[in-house]
Each structure stands twice: as structure tokens, then as C-alpha cells.
């Protein structure tokens, strides 16, 4: 029975994290982006510095009419937001927040599972693009597909470099094996993984598939109300998951200056929010990349860099025994 209770508690914790963290990142994006542009951002909702802005947005989305275009493929159209958001929830299950089994699902193949499931999230957006029966959506969907094809490769290479360094595919095992000297050793892998992850989440400056000013949010064009809100939530959940994975693989996850066992979750949270800040910072600072620049970055820079990192990891691993 205690086992069952423990599982229920862990699942509740993951559900709570999934409900709260993306909203915190979204609110941080509102405020950080505003201040980086010399603005204040939301100031009214909730009374104090607009803390309830995203809650208010959610209420507004919930009131909206549920529209499905006449020519759309109804089943796929309705399924797409769920396919986009559920994978990120699943990835949170395998993120370790502390040593000695402080993880919901301690998979031996945790890294493999996380990367595979994250890829499915992208399928949701492609489904949306295809089923909307709208040329902009289709264009956006195709761009997402192209982006997934090119960025999945360096992302997997970089992640496998961390796995190689640790000698295990288990996320808990990778954090256990982490040492401070991984920072210089795996620096290239860290950058490649993070950048490729950003591209996979279609965050600016890699938001060519959405490009609201030219193809009006691409695959999300025909979506409104709650379904659109789910896509937005999936984007922020994606940021949380990407930041968490980057922290776990390259920044030592729950490792902190002291009390790893008790405060591991806090160290991980600090790292996640620091990385989420970087995500927002990059979004504010850089203009959108053109489609050909996007592809060139992946194939001409990230893939060779990731391969170089793999070689470096392999050589050092053999040299150190």
C-alpha cells in the first residue's frame, strides 16, 4: 500500500508541476520581455503587477466558441492539441529531481524515452497543419516537419554525448555520473542540445513555421479558444521540459552546493528557470531566421559540432579508461 500512495503522490507532484511551471514561465516571458523592451508588461490582472494575466487569458480562451473549419479533417484537427501537449507531461515523468529514486519513473532507457516522446510533441503541430485545410497551416506544418528532420539529428547526437560520458542512458544515472569538469568537456554538446531543442520547440528565433507576421502562426491559424490555449501551453511546457532535460544532461540536474538529497528539487528548479530565462532572452534579442538559414544552421553548424563533441567525448572517455 505505501508503494501505491507514493506513486499517487509522485503523480500528483508531476501534475502540479505540469500545471504551474509552464504558467510561471509564461508569466516570466511577459514580464522579462516587457522589461527588455523598456515596457512594464501586464500590470492590472490580479492587482499586483499583473500576476494573474495568464489565468485571465485562460478564462478568456475557455469562453470562446469552439470552431472547426468546414473543410478540416475533424478528428485529426481535434486530436492535434492533445498530441502536442501530452508528450511533455510524459517527459516530466522521467526527470529525476533528487538522488535515490526521487523520480516517478526510473527508466533504464530514460534518455531514449525522453527524446522519443519529445519528438511526438512536434507531430501534434504537424497534424494541426495538415488537418486545417488551410494553405498557411500546411506551409507551417511542412516547415515544422523540415525543422524536426534537421534538428532532431544534432539534438540526439548531443544527448548521446552526455550518455556516452556517463556510460548510461538512465537520466538518474547521468546525473549521478556528472562532475563539474563536464561543463568544459560537454560545453559544445550543451549549446548544440539547447539550440536544437529551441528549434524543435519553434521558439524565436527559430519560429519560421509559425512566423505570425507572414503565415499567421502557421499550423495554429485555424485554432481558437481552448484548443489554441493548449498549443500555447504546450509551447511553455516544452520550454520547461527542454530546460529540465538540458539541466539534467549537462548541468548536473539536482546537484547543488549542499543538501543534494533534500533540496535536489530546488537546485533543479533554479537551473530550469535560469535556462528558461535564457530561452526568453534569446527570443527578445534575435530576429527570426529565414527558412534556408534555419536549415543551414542545423546541417552546416550543429551537426558537425555535435559530431565533434561526440568524438571529443569518445576520445576522452577511452583515454580516461
Amino acid at each position, binding site marked *: 500500500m505505501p508503494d501505491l500512495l507514493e506513486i499517487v503522490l509522485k503523480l500528483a507532484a508531476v501534475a502540479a508541476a505540469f500545471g504551474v511551471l509552464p504558467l510561471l514561465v509564461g508569466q516570466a516571458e511577459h514580464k*522579462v520581455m*516587457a*522589461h*527588455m523592451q*523598456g*515596457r512594464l508588461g501586464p500590470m492590472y490582472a490580479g492587482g499586483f503587477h499583473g500576476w494573474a494575466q495568464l489565468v485571465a487569458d485562460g478564462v478568456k480562451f475557455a469562453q470562446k466558441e469552439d470552431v472547426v473549419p468546414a473543410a478540416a479533417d475533424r478528428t485529426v484537427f481535434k486530436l492535434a492539441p492533445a498530441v502536442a501537449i501530452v508528450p511533455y507531461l510524459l517527459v516530466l515523468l522521467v526527470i529525476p529531481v533528487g538522488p535515490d529514486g526521487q523520480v516517478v519513473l526510473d527508466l533504464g532507457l530514460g534518455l531514449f524515452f525522453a527524446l522519443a516522446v519529445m519528438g511526438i510533441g512536434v507531430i501534434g503541430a504537424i497534424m494541426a497543419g495538415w488537418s486545417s485545410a488551410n494553405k498557411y497551416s500546411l506551409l507551417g506544418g511542412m516547415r515544422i516537419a523540415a525543422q524536426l528532420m534537421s534538428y532532431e539529428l544534432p539534438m540526439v547526437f548531443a544527448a548521446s554525448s552526455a550518455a556516452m560520458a556517463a556510460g548510461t542512458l538512465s537520466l538518474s544515472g547521468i546525473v549521478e555520473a556528472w562532475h563539474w569538469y563536464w561543463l568544459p568537456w560537454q560545453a559544445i554538446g550543451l549549446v548544440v542540445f539547447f539550440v536544437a531543442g529551441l528549434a524543435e520547440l519553434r521558439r524565436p528565433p527559430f519560429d519560421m513555421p509559425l512566423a505570425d507576421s507572414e503565415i499567421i502562426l502557421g499550423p495554429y491559424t485555424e485554432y481558437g479558444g481552448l484548443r489554441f490555449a493548449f498549443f500555447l501551453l504546450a509551447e511553455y511546457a516544452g520550454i520547461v521540459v527542454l530546460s529540465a532535460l538540458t539541466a539534467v544532461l549537462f548541468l548536473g540536474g539536482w546537484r547543488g552546493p549542499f543538501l543534494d538529497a533534500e533540496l535536489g528539487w530546488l537546485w533543479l528548479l533554479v537551473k530550469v528557470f535560469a535556462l528558461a530565462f535564457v530561452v526568453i*532572452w*534569446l527570443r527578445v*534579442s*534575435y530576429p527570426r531566421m529565414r527558412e534556408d538559414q534555419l536549415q543551414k544552421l542545423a546541417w552546416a553548424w550543429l551537426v558537425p559540432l555535435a559530431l565533434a563533441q561526440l568524438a571529443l567525448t569518445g576520445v576522452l572517455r577511452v583515454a580516461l579508461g
Partner: protein
Amino acid sequence: MRRAGPPVPTPGAHRGTPGYAIMSTVGRLPGGGLAKGLAVTLRTMTRRTITRQYPEVQPDLPPRSRGVIALFEENCTVCMLCARECPDWCIYIDSHKETLPAEGGGRARSRNVLDRFAIDFSLCMYCGICVEVCPFDALFWSPEFEYAEYDIAELTHEKERLREWMWTVPPPQAHDPSGEPPKEIAAAEKAAARGRKT
């Protein structure tokens, strides 16, 4: 009521600072442009925002703001110059002539009395020609701007309201110390110098 705003940075003022020298070196390195972009946004984040929370905080308007045209009714002589010069004919003036009884041995004097002075702010294009053309200093610019109405007809404001706005007219600005002296002063000084010579 008006609050002092944050200092407005003058363009190019940061060029002399050491930070600028560092940034221009960084900008020349490969990928330095990317770092520079990040630095700009981060620096902006640490500075005060320039947003004014308008309904809560009154904007800090410059003294020559063209908010509304105020009428100093006591100075108006009903000469009609403003109404005639107005490009879109938005000034309405009605008046009648009043005869003052003769004083002493002189004849009776007549003078104009203003009955109606109204500006239709739905037509006014805020060119300020009426203010410029008034020879008796009866029209002034006021920075007051909160006079929106729900009906376009209500934007025609009568002389009582225009007179009220006189209280919001700021005092004239001091002369720019490095500017040219006013023509009157220059002429007077020239005349004084001529007088000293002879």
C-alpha cells in the same frame, strides 16, 4: 501632480563611456554581434522602463504641448481674425455692439461685447493659427487633453469651458540662454548704443 519622468537618453551619449569601447571590440569578434544583441536587451532590462501608467499617473507633458485652445475672454475684442484665419472654420463668434454713455463732454463710445465664442474640436486640426494670429493675446495653448466626449456634437466647447482651460495654461517658457535675443531687446539695445554715440 506632474511627476518628473526618467531621464531621456540622448542618442550617441553613450559613445564616450568605457562600456561602449568594450562593446565595439566585442562586436568585431566572430559571433560578437550575437553577444552584443544579448547585452543590449539585458542592459535595457536593468534600466527603468519608460512606460507611464497613464490613468494612474499623469503624463509629464512638455510646456508647449498642443492639448486644447484656451480663451482669455477678457482680452478678446471680437476682431474675428481667428475665425477668419481658421483653415477649417471651426471657431464660432457672436457679438453685439454696446454703447457706453458719454462721459464728461465727449461723445458716446461703442464697444463690442462677446456673446458666443465656441471652438468645434471635432473640426479643429490643432494648427494653432488662431493662437498665432490673435493680436490681443486672447488665445493660448493648454496641455490639457482629457476632454473626450461620447457624442461628436458635444466637442463644440463654448466660451465658459474655454475660459476654464485658461487656468491650465503654463507660464511662458524662459528664453533659451544660448538663443538669439528677442527682436525688441536687440532693437532697443541698438537704439541705446546709437544714443550713446551722439
